[in-house]
Structure formats: C-alpha cells, structure tokens
C-alpha cells in the first residue's frame, strides 16, 4: 500500500512539469508572454496569443531601433508561483524588456510584484481583477483590456435596468471571482438592488448543480456568474438543464467570444455581457479578425485583440523614446492616446488602467445569427469613464490624493 501511495504522490508531482524557453541574447527587445496555455483559459489567449504578438511584430517591421525583437512564452498553469518565477528568471537572465500578462488575476498579481521589483513594464491583459490598478498597482503595470469594475458597471447595470433587482452569485473562488462579485455587488446595491447570497466554487469545478440548487432556493431573480472559461460554460449549461434559466435570469459577468462559441447560441442566447472588443464592430475590427482567422481558424477574443494592440503600442513607445529604458517607455505610454482597431481615444490613467470604450452586448438567438461567429448585438456603448469612473482608484498608493 505504501508503494501505491508513492505512485500517487509521484503523479501529483508530474503535474508540475513545465516548459522552458530558449535563451535570448543581450541588446534585443524581449517580449515575454506568461499565460495559461493548456488550462481552462487556454482558448481566451493561449497559443493564439503568441501568434498575435508575432503578427504585431512582423507588422511593425520585425525590428525596433535596429534591434531584433524576441518573444518568450510560458504556460503558467494558473499557478502564481510559476508566473512570478518565470518573470524573474527572464528579467535576470534573458534581458526581458516587457511582459504581456495572460489570463488569471491571481497569477497577474504575483507577476506585478516582480514587475515592480525588476522595473519591467507589465501589460496585464487576460486578468480582470481591478486591484491590479488599485491596491496592487505598480509604476510598471498597465491594465489594458478590461477590468472587473467595467464588467460590473456594464452587465450589472444593464440587467438592473431590466428589473433584475435581487441577485445570487456563483463565484470562481480566487482573486478574480471575488473582485468581480464585489464590483457587481456595488452596482447592484447602488441601484437599489439586493444580493441574496453567493457561493464560491473552486476554479475548474465541473459540476455546478448543487450550487445552482442553492441559487434557486434563494429566490433571487438574477443568477450572477462571476466566473469565466469552462467554469462559465459548465455553470450555464447546468443552469439550463435544471430549468433554472426559466425562473432566474443568468448574467455573464465575464464571457469571452470563445466561451459563447463553446456553450453554443442555443444555450447562451439572450445573455448580457460586457466586452472591450468584438470582431464584428466595424471595418477595422473585421480586417484584423479576418487576418487572425486565417491564422488560427477562430475569431479573436477581446484579449487576443488587446495583445496585438498592446504590442504595437509598446514598440511605438520604444521607438519614440529611442530606448527600452523602462521608466522612459512607461512615461511615453502614459502620455500617448491609443487609437487603433482595439481602442478609440484610449489613455492610460495615473493608476495604470487603460481607459477606453466598453460594449454591453446581448447574445443573439440562433435565428438572429446570420453567419459563423455572428454572436453579439451591441446594446450600449459605454465611454471609458462610464465603465471605469472618472477618477483613478484611490486605493492605489501611487495616486495623488
């Protein structure tokens, strides 16, 4: 028996395998991509995120200031220690000049500490937690695509306007889920609504039925899903199966295009969600989406589009200041307006948040969807200030009071 237990322990250890990147020489621009490449969030950015960075680099011309641009990438497996230690290793040994952060707020918070210590610009994209530009802000963090505050303001307000006053949350049990629940709760309370209860489900839970039963017993009108990726599709699927969607209105506090694709329109129709980007908004977004599709055979998510945009912004800043010096680049980034297919009149606030328009969407019914990936209709365009407020987050120590 002890032998058998040893095998099981060994099995657990095997789960910790990790890949290592090739080394990079000095005098290069080195962009790191630290993301969930194989887990529940792998479709949101993942390998396609690396493709998008390379697309941006080749569009930029392949070099900046005559230096070669190298991309390093690693699978953080949703483990904060792996993300942080890879960041540190690249900063110490590979001449890292900038990091693009993939999914998972927990990992990104750990990485932001390294960014501050190593003075390397860290553009957080996949992570949603608003604390990245609040209590966890650093002079080197930029939060680029969206945050939990914007999601709460978008989706929760839209649903409350339709009369959904009482809420029950099913929340992913880590930094992202709790911050998202807090953001939505604020909006609900501010609009005279009530939160009747919440359960925290571990990340990667497959069976949501018992949580849903608790949600139903609460008698709330709205089922707030403060989770993402496969957690989202599994909870929504079970809600349909148990007939809960007939008595409660589900709210997708964060759903990516790939999640809706995976859940299918049949299941997801009528959902409200908030996003910073949709491929079918205008000719510019469609042009990018078409090129992306040709490469990975899917339409881009908000985060994948943001990866492209952020890479170009960073390289432009390096070119403008004529150096990869972190402080100069950060100063340049913070004073440049961002105008591209991803964001209109975007700007990076004092606390590091990139403020830009967000869209409240409603998922189409199968009948409304006319062509592949035709999933959303725009309900409301929120200005950056509507989404994230007019003032920087006062809990960020850098913000002057």
């Amino acid at each position, binding site marked *: *028996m*002890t*032998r*058998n*237990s*040893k*095998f*099981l322990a*060994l*099995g*657990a250890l*095997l789960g910790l395998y990790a890949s290592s990147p090739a080394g990079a020489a000095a005098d290069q621009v080195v962009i790191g991509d630290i993301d969930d490449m*194989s*887990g*529940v*969030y*792998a*479709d949101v950015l*993942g390998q396609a995120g690396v493709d998008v960075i390379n697309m941006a680099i080749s569009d930029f011309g392949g070099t900046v200031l005559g230096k070669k641009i190298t991309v390093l990438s690693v699978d953080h497996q949703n483990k904060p220690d792996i993300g942080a230690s890879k960041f540190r290793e690249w900063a110490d040994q590979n001449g890292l000049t900038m990091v693009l952060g993939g999914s998972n707020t927990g990992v990104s918070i750990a990485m932001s500490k390294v960014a501050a210590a190593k003075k390397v610009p860290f553009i957080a994209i996949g992570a949603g937690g608003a604390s990245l530009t609040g209590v966890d802000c650093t002079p080197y963090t930029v939060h680029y695509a969206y945050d939990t505050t914007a999601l709460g303001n978008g989706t929760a307000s839209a649903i409350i306007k339709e009369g959904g006053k009482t809420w029950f949350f099913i929340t992913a*049990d880590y930094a992202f889920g709790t911050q998202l629940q807090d953001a939505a709760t604020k909006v609900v309370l501010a609009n005279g609504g009530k939160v009747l209860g919440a*359960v*925290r*489900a*571990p990340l*990667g*839970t*497959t*069976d949501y*039925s*018992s*949580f849903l*039963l*608790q949600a139903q*017993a609460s008698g709330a009108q709205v089922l707030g899903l403060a989770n993402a*990726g*496969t957690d989202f*599709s*599994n909870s929504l*699927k*079970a809600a349909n*199966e*148990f*007939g809960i969607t007939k008595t409660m209105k589900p709210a997708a506090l964060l759903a990516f295009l*790939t*999640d809706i*694709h*995976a*859940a*299918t329109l*049949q*299941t997801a129709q009528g959902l409200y969600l908030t996003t910073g980007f949709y491929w079918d908004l205008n000719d510019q977004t469609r042009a990018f989406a078409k090129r992306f599709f040709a490469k990975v055979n*899917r339409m881009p998510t908000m985060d994948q589009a943001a990866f492209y945009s952020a890479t170009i912004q960073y390289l432009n800043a390096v070119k403008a200041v004529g150096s990869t010096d972190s402080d100069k680049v950060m100063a340049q980034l913070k004073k440049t307006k961002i105008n591209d297919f991803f964001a209109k009149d975007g700007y990076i606030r004092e606390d590091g948040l990139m403020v830009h328009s967000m869209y409240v969407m409603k998922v189409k019914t199968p009948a409304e969807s006319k062509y592949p990936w035709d999933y959303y209709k725009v309900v409301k365009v929120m200005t950056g200030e509507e989404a994230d407020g007019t003032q920087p987050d006062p809990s960020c120590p850098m913000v002057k009071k």
Partner: protein
Amino acid sequence: MTTVFGVPLPAILGQLMLGLVNGSFYALLSLGLAVIFGLLGVVNFAHGAFYMLGAFAAYIGLQFLGINYWWALLLAPLTVGLLGVLIERLFLRHLYQVEPVYGLLLTFGIALIAEGIMRSLFGASGKSYPVPPLLQGVLNLGFMILPIYRAWVVMASVTVCGLTWFLIERTRLGARLRAATENARLVQAFGINVPVMVMCTYGAGVALAALAGVLAAPVIQVSPLMGSSLVIVVFAVVVIGGMGSIVGAIVSGLVLGLIEGLTKVVYPEASSIVVFVIMALVLIWRPAGLFGKEP
C-alpha cells in the same frame, strides 16, 4: 421547516441526490481503475483521458457521422476500448515485469498526448453535447427538480457497476481472471491464454471509462481537460475503497459523491478537497483502504 445543521431538509435531500449523480460517475470510473489495477497491477493514469476520449467520440459521432446518443453509448466505449487494447499490446505489456511506476509514467504520458491532441483539434473550451431528446425535461421529486437525464445516469451507472461486479465475482470467466491475478503461470499451465485475458481486461476497463465519458457528455462541457480534473479524485476514491477492490470502488465512489454533495452545502470552498482529506484519514487508520485486504 425541518432543518439539519441549520440547513433546510429539502436542501439536504436535493444535495444528496446530486451527490448520488456525481457518485455514479466516480463509481463507474473508479471501477475501471480498480479492475485494471486489481488484475494487471497497472496504475492507469490515462483513465481520465479515456473518459475524455469517450465523450469526444460521442461528440464526433453526433457532429460528423450522425451517430445518435444511444449508438454512442455502445460505439464510443467499443472504439476507445479497442484503442486501449492497442495500447496494451504495443506498450503496456512490456512493462508488466518491471516496477509498476513505469506503467504509471507511460499512462501519464499517454494522457498528456491525448489531451494535447484534443486541445489542438477542438480547443480548450471544448464542445457542447445536447441531452438526447428522449431524456430531456425534469422530474419533480417534491424536494427538488431533477433533470431526467441525471436520473438516467444514476440508473445506468449502478446497472453497469452491478453487472461488472457480477461478471468478475460470480462467473467462470471472472474466476479465471481472479485466478490469473493470483498466479498467472499456474493458470497459463491449465491452458488458459492469460495474455489475451489481460489484454481484454485492460480494454474493458478503458471501455468503462469511455462509457462514463459518454454519460457525462450531455451534462458537462466536452473538453480536453474534463478527464484530468476528475482522474485525481477518482484515484483518491480507489485508494479509499482499497486498491483493486471492486466492491470498494463502487461503494466508496457513491458514498464520496454524497459526502462531496453535502460539503457543497455546508462549506462549498472545501468541496474540491474533502475527498482528499478523507483519503488522508483512511490512509492513516486503514492503509489498505476500507475494503482492501490488509497485507
């Protein structure tokens, strides 16, 4: 309203029912693992991957070949079982003579490869499989609304578990299998083709995992990761039941499903670890597992 530990009784009953559904999956999966470990001595780490492949086989069948759910229940386990047979013939049988840890490493590698292939083909967020028309709708049990499909899962799983137990413990074939586990050379000397029997056993264990996969497909997202999140729990179930014990695997699968269900009401955050806590306790007080024979 009657309450237990401050939780209303209907809520407890509802959670117990759901726990039973999950327990059915655990039982079916741990049964396959226990059969394979008991008769081959292989710690089959690829079990979760075969479960996942079973679900994908059903999805592919429905999406591309027009094979409906009922045929998938038969064909998916058959296909994946054959794949298992192939793996046993090509790789696994070379490892019977060496430390079991090699079998574990091999099957772990196979699991990673299978997950990687399915991820690159279908993406990490997976695919959706509809509930078959005949089993759509819900049952009102008074204390809860139970989807008919979930009730079917419990019935199907308990039936298959019962049949497997009967086959191994009560039939001639089962007796030969058990004899071959005790002393393969002696049984071979009686003219029974042990290698073929072992091969079929592995195939059957794998087919059980694939069957669980087909049963799970309409309930959860068919995704490359669905197996790896489950296989660890199932291993714990097998350890608790006693490595290689058929009855132990079935009973502890169902019971742990129930306990997990209760945890989800009392303290949801702990629901993903409660099985492991129990495993640790069982290992301390009864290292051979609840139904295992003390060495």
